[in-house]
């Protein structure tokens, strides 16, 4: 196996491991913990690729699939994609360990882990894909697995509708991504991101504005940006490990990744940066403020995540080295503290049965380890010095001040950044401190969460402290990712002490504001969010409008009457063919009549007589047998005119059809007059017209002689290419075997469908 095939197999290993995952997840504890070996190994592997990129530069592993269509399975390893991949695999490891305890004894554990691993593989595919179509496929796979995971407890209607909402919003954006990918391929002639990154000049392309709009639509829906933000809080219906992993640390960052990846390709213009800045700032501000009005721990975290996603998209959209570096730092810091806080919220709910911040308190007594993890994460989120969140916020403020827009705009930007960070800090306190250190208002649980459930958040919290004290440790990955995003290598200085400057003042103001807001949280919870800002109403309106329209259209198109379907098909075919023949003037001279043998004439008469008899039959049996006679007659015609394969098949089919008809009609005892005279007349007219059109076609088409070279080709090629003399069969099983496979699948599907329909009918009757 070549090294590129190996690399591809490793990236896809979460998919390849699925059967094993399903088996292992349902073993008795502690066997499921072994599942963490897969993401653990992946973390190590992507760590290795990170060092390879750092030493030798970016590389692509590719396996062509349909090169003519620019399609390949290819992965691009550079600073940005490997940092994302390490993050996904590492957080995934912690989440898997956590989830084995969170779902201990759950009967659907197998389904959960299979979907989770499928998601992990898809997410790695998103950040590593080199081919833009591959990127789209993995992108939609993350949306699909997210749908399954949000709806994991599918017995609950709320979970189902939240899953559907997330799917509709994010996969709608996914379609925009597909369109953008196709436009990119048309405009640049390549589907490879690695190549796109080196060819500039997209901004002068006439397709530039559509490409940007579609890319941003994809990014904004996936990363829950205004006005699409509403699906993310609703997605909190998912089990908590899923919320922590998909809806905080990884999947919602796919939009951030897309913006970061595309900024060197499509960025650098006012269209790109301006749109991103406006949307991202709105999202950042509204999300942070809204987070303070919620009492459900997970919804607090969800809104704060929306706000953080706005900040990340803003930073990567600005795209200067300073902003991109700040974006990477913020990304890492956010993944650590937000993931930890989600896991803590899950542990609290696991032990106390509630996650309502207004009724929780004093849990530090009974859940000391969880409380420690929560405190570390909250401190990082609030940006207290010596925590990584502090570095991230300093970088954020620094980048915003250097953003380069005009004076007033910068002022507004800085002010909103401070407002958002202040609210985010307070939200961190609400989620991380209130349940543990506020005065006890509820019966505290009797014991701490299991070790597997506090080890993961505690680990994340400790990383936040480590990187907060020695920020230089993160400088390598940050500058490598920044290099990938901006194309310019710049030394990123991550230091604890920047000196007394504006940034430090802003940080102090932010921290003080956060504490103040935290103290008055009870009063904030009384405020209701203005209806005008609830964009979810637009979504509901669109969805219910679509429902209404389809309820009106569907009955007209789907009458569930076989007769009207057949009528529609025949009338359409007759009309199209007649128009084409009448207007096209394509008819050649009619076919010369060949002498008719006596036995042929008799056979034709039998077929016609049987057809007439079938129409006028008074009993079921007579009609069925007459139809059978028509079929046999036609089969004999086939045999006479040199199509023995067709004749044989026709005989067998007719025989079985008669049996099936008899079985069906046996049940339909009444064989009465079901149609009015008018309907009969219409049917007769259609039937005669169809017959006339087919007869005309046969007469004229046969006369023109065949110009097709296929018949000759197949006759020549069958013996030596396919070792067969029966051309008909060789075509069916070899030359066009793929068609036959499809047809066989259709047949099998029909059989399953018929059986299901018949059995449902029987159940209803009994």
């Amino acid at each position, binding site marked *: 196996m070549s090294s590129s095939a190996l690399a591809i197999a490793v990236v896809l290993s979460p998919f390849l491991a699925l059967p094993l995952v399903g088996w292992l997840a349902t073993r008795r504890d502690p066997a499921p913990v072994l599942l963490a070996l897969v993401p653990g190994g992946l973390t190590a592997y992507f760590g290795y690729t990170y060092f390879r990129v750092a030493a030798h530069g970016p590389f692509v592993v590719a396996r062509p699939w349909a090169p003519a269509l620019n399609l390949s399975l290819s992965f691009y390893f550079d600073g940005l994609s490997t940092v994302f991949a390490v993050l996904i695999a590492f957080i995934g490891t912690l989440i898997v360990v956590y989830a084995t305890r969170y779902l201990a004894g759950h009967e659907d554990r197998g389904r959960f882990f299979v979907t989770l691993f499928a998601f992990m593989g898809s997410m790695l595919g998103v950040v590593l894909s080199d081919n833009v179509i591959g990127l789209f496929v993995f992108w939609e796979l993350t949306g699909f697995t997210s749908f399954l995971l949000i709806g994991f407890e599918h017995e609950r209607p709320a979970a189902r509708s939240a899953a559907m909402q997330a799917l509709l919003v994010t996969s709608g954006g996914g379609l925009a991504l597909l369109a953008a990918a196709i436009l990119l391929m048309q405009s640049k002639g390549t589907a490879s991101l690695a190549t796109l990154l080196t060819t500039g000049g997209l901004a002068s392309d006439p397709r530039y504005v559509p490409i940007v709009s579609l890319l941003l639509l994809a990014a904004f829906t996936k990363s829950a940006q205004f006005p699409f933000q509403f699906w993310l809080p609703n997605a909190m219906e998912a089990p908590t490990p899923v919320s922590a992993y998909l809806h905080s640390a990884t999947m919602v960052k796919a939009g951030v990744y897309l913006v970061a990846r595309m900024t060197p390709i499509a960025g650098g213009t006012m269209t790109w940066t301006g749109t991103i800045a406006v949307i991202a700032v709105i999202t950042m501000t509204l999300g942070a403020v809204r987070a303070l009005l919620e009492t459900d721990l997970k919804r607090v975290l969800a809104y704060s995540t929306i706000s953080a996603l706005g900040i990340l998209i803003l930073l990567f959209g600005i795209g200067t080295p300073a902003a991109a570096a700040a974006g990477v730092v913020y990304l890492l810091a956010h993944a650590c503290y937000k993931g930890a806080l989600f896991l803590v919220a899950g542990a609290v709910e696991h032990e106390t049965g509630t996650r309502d911040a207004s009724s929780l308190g004093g849990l530090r007594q009974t859940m000391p380890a969880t409380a420690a993890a929560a405190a570390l994460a909250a401190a990082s989120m609030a940006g207290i010095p010596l925590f990584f969140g502090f570095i991230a916020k300093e970088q954020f403020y620094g980048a915003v001040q250097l953003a380069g827009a005009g004076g007033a705009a910068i002022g507004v930007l800085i002010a909103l950044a401070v407002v958002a960070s202040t609210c985010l800090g307070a939200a961190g306190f609400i989620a991380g401190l209130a349940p543990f250190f506020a005065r006890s208002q509820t019966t505290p649980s009797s014991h701490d969460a299991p070790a597997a459930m506090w080890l993961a958040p505690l680990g994340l919290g400790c990383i936040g402290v480590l990187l907060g004290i020695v920020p230089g440790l993160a400088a390598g990955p940050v500058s490598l990712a920044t290099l990938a995003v901006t194309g310019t290598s710049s030394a990123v200085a991550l230091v604890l002490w920047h000196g007394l400057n504006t940034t430090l003042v802003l940080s102090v103001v932010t921290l003080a504001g956060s504490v103040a807001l935290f103290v008055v949280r009870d009063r904030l919870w009384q405020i209701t969010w203005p209806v005008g800002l609830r964009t979810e109403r637009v979504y509901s309106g669109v969805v219910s409008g679509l429902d209404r329209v389809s309820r009106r259209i569907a009955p007209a198109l789907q009458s569930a009457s076989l007769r009207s379907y057949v009528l529609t098909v025949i009338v359409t075919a007759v009309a199209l063919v007649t128009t084409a023949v009448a207007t096209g003037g394509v008819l050649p001279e009619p076919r010369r009549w060949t002498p008719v043998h006596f036995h042929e004439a008799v056979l034709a008469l039998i077929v016609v007589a049987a057809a007439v008899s079938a129409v006028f039959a008074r009993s079921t049996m007579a009609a069925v047998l007459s139809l059978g006679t028509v079929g046999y007659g036609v089969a004999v015609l086939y045999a006479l005119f040199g199509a*023995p*394969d067709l004749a*044989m*098949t026709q005989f*067998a*089919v007719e*025989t*079985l059809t008669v*049996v*099936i008809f008899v*079985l*069906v009609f*046996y*049940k339909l005892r009444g064989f009465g007059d079901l149609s009015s005279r008018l309907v009969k007349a219409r049917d007769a007219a259609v039937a005669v017209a169809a017959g006339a059109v087919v007869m005309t076609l046969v007469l004229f088409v046969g006369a023109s002689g065949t110009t097709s070279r296929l018949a000759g080709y197949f006759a020549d090629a069958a013996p030596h290419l*396919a*070792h*067969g*003399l*029966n051309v*008909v*069969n*060789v075509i*069916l*099983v*070899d030359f066009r*075997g*793929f068609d*036959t*496979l499809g047809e*066989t*699948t259709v*047949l*099998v599907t*029909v*059989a*399953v469908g*018929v*059986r299901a329909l*018949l*059995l449902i*009918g*029987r159940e209803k*009757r*009994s």
Partner: protein
Amino acid sequence: MSSTLLQTATRVLMPLLLLFAVFLLLRGHNEPGGGFVGGLVVAASFVLYAIAFGVEAGRRALLVRPSTLLGIGLLTALLSGVPAVLGGRPFMTAQWTEIGAGPESIALGTPLVFDAGVFLAVVGVVLTIVFTLADVSRPEE
């Protein structure tokens, strides 16, 4: 509804029909025949058996459930395309091997496996539909 004539005739006809079906399947590549029509003949023979001896007897005679044949048939057809992939060729490229030498040699290839899959699937399709219809059509006691 049991007819001695039909039952006796079926006992004789059934093995002949089954043999004929296999014959059709195997000769299909060079002479009229093939998996599809072979499958239809097998299905027809079991339908005949079911008419003569009753649907339950027909089911027992088949030994496996018709729905199992659906899966096995489709899977066989699908897997017949895999050897090509393993050899680095596009999916479903026919792979042939010669058995024996000279004029008596027989070429065996994946298309035959594919045809056998179609054969089994067709038997499954027809018998799934016919047996289920027969069950449902039976007057309710």
